[in-house]
């Protein structure tokens, strides 16, 4: 089947999951967090500066140490995955809550620091702001949080729209074909599956691609992109086949491994260490065959 659709392969890349540049995740966060990204990057500075500002009467005292412990996980995550050459957008998803928390804390500290600076530099203006507005800041800054929120929401909506309208084709195509074909499949007499050959599209999982990939080399001992094994589309199979029976055992195990670890891992069929770990006695029994079965029962 592959010859009919794939043709000659494009020139092979150096590595299938090749290295990306150091700042891949920062550029990616520009798109996904937009205005929250500068706040995230400035959060350590702002937390330090906020420590110098005494808390106002009604506010709880600042606890930058606690925030640092809490937020350091996000920065460590970002640094760790930026150091690994193989980068994917989804590897950062677990740290997004921490990123956004850091950005929110940074924004809150920025407001306190700005209010304190204003009180020191222009006391009369600050007094007027405290009397007139809810935030205790200079009146022209009152609308700033709302404006930033609105701008961030607009940018995020633009990004969501781009993902849906530019890269939504695989989902649309699958769902259209599924809705049309599934009824016909279930009413068929034979249980033979409708085989889906995704060819060079095997790695597409709904997020925009970093690069085009080539299919794994024939006879390779390991599946190169284990995480993709879980994405092999099985939706078009008739009900009896819907479980992962079509996947070879190695792929199925790879899918289980991929859920546990986002980084690809080499799996060899018979690790030598496993063979060595068997005690000598068991190996001898194994050679004799029938005796071994007797002992076990």
């Amino acid at each position, binding site marked *: 089947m592959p010859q009919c659709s794939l043709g000659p392969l494009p020139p092979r890349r150096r590595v299938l999951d090749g290295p990306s540049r150091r700042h891949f995740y920062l550029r990616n966060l520009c798109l996904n967090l937009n205005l929250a990204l500068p706040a995230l990057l400035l959060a350590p500075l702002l937390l330090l500066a906020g420590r110098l500002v005494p808390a106002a009467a009604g506010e709880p005292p600042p606890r930058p140490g606690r925030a640092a412990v809490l937020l350091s996980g996000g920065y460590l995550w970002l640094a760790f995955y930026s150091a690994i050459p193989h980068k994917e957008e989804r590897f950062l998803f677990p740290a997004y809550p921490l990123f956004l928390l850091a950005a929110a804390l940074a924004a809150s500290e920025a407001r306190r620091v700005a209010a304190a600076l204003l009180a020191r530099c222009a006391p009369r203006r600050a007094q007027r702001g405290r009397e007139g507005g809810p935030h205790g800041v200079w009146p022209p800054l009152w609308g700033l949080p709302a404006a930033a929120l609105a701008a961030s929401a607009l940018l995020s909506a*633009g990004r969501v729209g781009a993902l849906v309208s530019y890269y939504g084709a695989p989902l649309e*195509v699958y769902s259209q074909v599924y809705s049309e074909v599934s009824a016909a499949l279930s009413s068929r007499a034979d249980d033979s599956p409708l085989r889906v050959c995704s060819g060079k599209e095997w790695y597409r999982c709904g997020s925009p691609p970093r690069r085009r990939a080539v299919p794994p080399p024939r006879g390779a001992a390991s599946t190169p992109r284990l995480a993709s094994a879980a994405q092999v589309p099985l939706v078009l199979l008739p009900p009896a086949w819907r479980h992962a029976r079509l996947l070879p055992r190695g792929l199925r195990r790879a899918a289980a491994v991929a859920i546990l670890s986002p980084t690809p891992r080499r799996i060899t069929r018979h690790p030598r260490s496993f063979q060595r770990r068997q005690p000598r006695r068991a190996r001898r029994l194994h050679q004799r065959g029938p005796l071994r079965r007797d002992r076990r029962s």
Partner: protein
Amino acid sequence: MIVDLELPGDAAPRSRAGWHVWARRPFLDADRSPSWSRALYVPWLTAGRNVYANYSVLGRQPLMVMLHGSV
């Protein structure tokens, strides 16, 4: 059934004789679209600047034959 993205940069024209299109949607060709317009979607502004390729599902029979038997 084959799922394929038909990019113009691919090495050779594929022999599609004997295959029928079941579904086809535009999919952004990132190599030939400007980065600013593919990063964000702005109505009436960005979609026209991008270049699209066909993302298609192909089958051995026409879809109507597959669904209703021989027509």
